[in-house]
């Protein structure tokens, strides 16, 4: 018994396969053209030039090599001392940076606490209040810290004050969203309980919501602090205090070994804070 050509399974399979491949190929072709167009456009707009890179590459390696200080084996201590010649000053500036990040995170957390309950669908009956709180925090976190810093430096003058304010506003937005999401995932049983006992809105928040969400709040705030230390280190580029101002100065003035010294100190500080915060976070999450 032989199969007719229409029933031949191999043929049916091959036909279906080539059909599929054709469909896919035309899609892939379209995608490739789109990609090539975007690429070409970006190269033109981005002023990418292999020649500049080719000329610049040796100077980049020279630049990086220049940041490596001369440390001789016979008097290494003295050489390292010379490399970090302004150690106390830089340490004080890093202290400023941490203070800016700390204050920004703390005030940002307070700001987020103000908005987060209004921005939780399960805690607020009024839709307008909910939308207003959500949109406000959205705008607060969508604008980069550095832009806030530029504006606040104009308003308040140079120094750590505008830096802390910039980080505060951005953190209010970022934490407000996270806190609201935590609030929306709580167990509603305790809320019903407090409401049944005659508690008003503030008592509901205090007695039914806060105990459930506090560990998460603290964990998110600590995470934000880690991020903010990084931002506070560069916020000085626009004059908002901290180590960034000094880093900008030495980069602009080509004080090569100072650049590497300051960058290394920033990396060390950031990792130290990361490790400490991670330990604290685990304590808070496990301790409750």
């Amino acid at each position: 018994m032989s199969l007719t050509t229409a029933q031949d399974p191999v043929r049916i399979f091959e036909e279906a396969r080539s059909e599929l491949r054709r469909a896919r190929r035309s899609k892939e072709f379209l995608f490739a053209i789109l990609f090539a167009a975007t690429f070409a456009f970006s190269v033109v707009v981005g002023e990418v030039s292999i020649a500049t890179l080719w000329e610049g590459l040796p100077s980049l390696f020279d630049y990086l090599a220049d940041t490596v200080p001369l440390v001789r084996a016979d008097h290494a201590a003295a050489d390292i001392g010379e490399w970090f010649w302004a150690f106390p000053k830089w340490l004080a500036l890093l202290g400023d940076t941490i203070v800016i990040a700390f204050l920004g995170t703390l005030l940002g957390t307070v700001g987020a606490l103000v908005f987060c309950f209004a921005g939780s669908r399960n805690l607020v009956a009024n839709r307008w209040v909910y939308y207003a709180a959500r949109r406000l925090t959205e705008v607060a976190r969508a604008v980069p810290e550095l832009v806030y810093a530029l504006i606040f430096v104009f308003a308040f003058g140079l120094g750590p004050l505008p830096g802390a304010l910039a980080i505060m506003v951005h953190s209010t937005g970022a934490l407000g969203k996270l806190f609201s999401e935590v609030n929306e995932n709580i167990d509603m049983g305790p809320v019903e309980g407090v409401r049944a006992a005659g508690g008003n809105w503030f008592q509901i928040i205090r007695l039914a919501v806060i105990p459930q969400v506090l560990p998460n709040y603290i964990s998110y705030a600590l995470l934000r602090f880690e991020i903010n230390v990084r931002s506070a280190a560069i916020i000085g580029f626009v004059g908002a205090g901290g180590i960034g101002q000094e880093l900008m100065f030495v980069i602009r003035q080509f004080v090569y070994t100072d650049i590497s010294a300051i960058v290394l100190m920033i990396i060390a500080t950031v990792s130290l804070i990361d490790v400490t915060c991670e330990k604290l976070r685990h304590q808070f999450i496990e301790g409750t």
Partner: protein
Amino acid sequence: MKRMMVRRGNSGDAQLESARERWPSLFVTPLAQRARIYGAWLLLVGATIYALWHTGFFDVTRLIDGLGKLGWLLGFMFPPAANGWFLDFCEGILETLGMAFLGTLFAALIALPFGFLGARNVVTSAVIHFSLRRTFDCLRGVDTLIWALVFVNVVGLGPFAGILAIIVSDLGTFAKLFAEAIENIDRKQVEGVRSTGASEIEVMRFGILPQVIPVILSQTLYYFESNTRSATILGIVGAGGIGLQLSDRIRVNNWDEACLIIIMILITVSIIDHLSKLVRLRIIQAQEYRP
């Protein structure tokens, strides 16, 4: 609560007393723990007061002056206006997108081989693994904006410096993420390809790559989003993009134009977020439905 149980009668009273004796920590927080809690609060309050004083929040005249000025400039921000610069702003936004696109693309392409080298199941040498990972950590540890300042010195002002800054700082992140993706693959496919007598390169191409491509693509798209955000501020240090125009407008007091630029940045970023989320979902779905 405690009172009520006591009033209920002798048996409840006795039970309560015995419970109090057996688990005293349930009734009174131990002194050491209380001391620790109060100490932590004291530390936090002290640190806050110091930080407020140190950053100048107690300088009330400055604060009031600043708030006044802030209100004044916010008033000038509305209504936002282009004053004939709209096309230049659009060009700046497109330049920003181009920078993010090329930076992310090249960072991902360069990071791919390093991802293979840094994966423990591809290159087993602990020395290579350790040294590569630490190099990536250092690249990642330095912020994009710092790299941008460095590259402005090396290749001059303009978007090219920004692209290079994005490439270098993301190289570390991508290499780490890709190496982790490769370390998490299913061993069986690799064994299968190897059992057919394939070379190491063929094992990577047919055993490893098909498994990690979706992960790599979706991570790359995710970083494209994040780089769009960071590319908007690279211009502040002269590395191209819309940031240059924004910081110029702020420095010369053109608040209505600055406000328009900020609004344009917000719209662009949200469009990119949306598009990239769509594409990422499609990639993940294509992965799941593959027969």
